[in-house]
């Protein structure tokens, strides 16, 4: 008996800890997403087009066309669920020290995975399995936030693109859901972590400036990488490249780096403001960058106005969806007007078409010259 007890105690001490560790080991979501991407068969051009058109709402869901895509994606999406559920921060391990040469291969994979997740949600909605469909929409919302991790402007744009697809997909179906389902989904949306802000993402742009600063501000710096950069397709629109190259003296680099940092800080500060101030700040930054005495600044500082609009667009779309989740098919002109856009705080406009679809619109065209709207129903 004594030996049995001793053996039992020894076995418990030996195996219990590792087993527990295996059970609860938190994994960096980025690693799980990469695994999900690795086991996904590549979409054919026709399949990619199908996913694209359905997710954008330009084509109705076609179960026959989606069947192969979804059966091939099953294991990959299950891994994506594990990634989305992970409680540890998503670290893509981006090599920021590479500046403009930094590799960001995950963003396109996340964009594709988000689209396939929405296609899977569409499949469940078509079968009347609303709860399962919502699971995949929530996966897409989480995936969007993870895509934005790392706070680079490109990651941020991809985050917004994925989130926009998810909001528009929910809008296509939510009028058909009962009140409880709408309320549950609205509550689940509120539990999601906030989207990465454009303001934080703009901070990531300092990677480019740091790259210039650390490599070229010292006497005798090797300019080979600048020459390589100037010979690349991504720099087609950069002007006066010969003159630009001549600005790469130690003094020149220090001066244009200081100017770029100042513009970046102004843009970042502006991105934390309400839309009118944000828009004014972005416009001023763009104008000052274009009037800089340095060709480097004129060429390398990316336009900011369009970037600044994104967070207000997504916030307005979310408000529109919230209104529909709250009121369902009872949504009318008076109720819609109690909700306000994120740009200027104007009441939302309501439009009902003969086919029963409802559209919510901003009072004024936003972004400038474009109509921002969300259509409910198919």
């Amino acid at each position, binding site marked *: 008996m004594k030996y049995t007890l001793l053996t039992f105690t020894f076995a418990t001490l030996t195996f219990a800890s590792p087993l527990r560790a295996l059970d609860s080991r938190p994994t960096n979501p980025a690693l799980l997403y990469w695994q999900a*991407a*690795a086991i996904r068969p*590549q*979409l054919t*051009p026709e399949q*990619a087009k199908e996913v*694209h058109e359905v997710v954008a709402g330009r084509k109705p869901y076609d179960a026959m066309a989606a069947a192969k895509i979804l*059966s091939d994606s*099953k*294991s990959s999406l*299950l891994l994506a*669920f*594990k990634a*989305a*559920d992970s409680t540890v921060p998503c670290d893509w391990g981006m090599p920021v020290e*590479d*500046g*403009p*040469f*930094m*590799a*960001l*291969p995950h*963003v*396109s*994979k996340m*964009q*594709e995975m988000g689209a396939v997740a929405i296609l899977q949600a569409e499949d469940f909605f078509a079968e009347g399995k609303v709860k*399962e469909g919502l*699971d995949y929409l*929530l*996966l897409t919302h*989480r995936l969007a936030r993870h895509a934005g991790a790392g706070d*680079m*402007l*490109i990651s941020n*744009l*991809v985050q917004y*693109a994925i989130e926009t697809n998810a909001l528009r997909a929910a809008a296509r179906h939510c009028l058909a859901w009962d009140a409880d389902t709408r309320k549950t989904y609205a509550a*689940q949306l509120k539990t999601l972590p906030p989207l990465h802000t454009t303001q934080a993402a703009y901070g990531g742009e300092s*990677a*480019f400036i740091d790259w210039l600063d650390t490599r070229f501000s010292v006497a005798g710096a090797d*300019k080979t990488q600048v*020459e*390589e*950069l*100037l*010979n*690349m*397709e*991504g*720099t*087609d*629109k950069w002007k006066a*490249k*010969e003159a630009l*190259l001549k600005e790469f003296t130690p003094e020149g680099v220090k001066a244009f780096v200081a100017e770029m940092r100042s513009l970046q800080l102004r843009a970042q500060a502006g991105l934390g403001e309400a839309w009118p101030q944000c828009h004014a700040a972005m416009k001023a930054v763009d104008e000052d960058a274009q009037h800089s005495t340095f060709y480097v600044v004129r060429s390398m500082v*990316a*336009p900011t106005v*369009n970037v600044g609009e994104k967070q207000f667009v997504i916030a307005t779309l979310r408000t529109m969806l919230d209104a529909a989740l709250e009121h369902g098919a009872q949504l009318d002109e008076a109720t819609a007007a109690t909700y306000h856009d994120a740009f200027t705080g104007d009441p939302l406009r309501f439009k009902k078409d003969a086919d029963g679809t409802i559209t919510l619109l901003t009072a004024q065209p936003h972004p400038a010259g474009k109509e921002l709207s969300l259509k409910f129903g198919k």
Partner: protein
Amino acid sequence: MSTPTPDDDQSMRDALQRDAARVSEPAFDAALHYETMRRVRALAETKSATPRWHLAPTLTAAAAVVALSALIALWPHSSAPTKPREVVTSLAPRTAAPRASLLAYQAAANDGDAALLALLDRDASTLLPASSPLFNATLP
């Protein structure tokens, strides 16, 4: 959010069917393998055993011709004015930006959302390509 429970049997069936589809190659023939390896090694040994010293005069002559040509080509012409070295001979874009790099995406984003999304679509279908079948083969 909850992780959906997969249909275990269906997953297993799918996996088995995938594997079954791959078994179109003939079974591994150990005897053939070792015979082939023996021949490869024998061939390599024969090659390395071949004396190379008889090539020495030919190689020396060829090296001398190359060195002489280079000397003539690079000989400074005293009559010609000294020109500073062109740092960048042509700045017309000719190299593709590294795939999936910040530079490539920024340039696309500057052309608008549609351009960025098109580039992301292209990259999603070409990055992380399938591993070579050589590395999928069963290990000995």
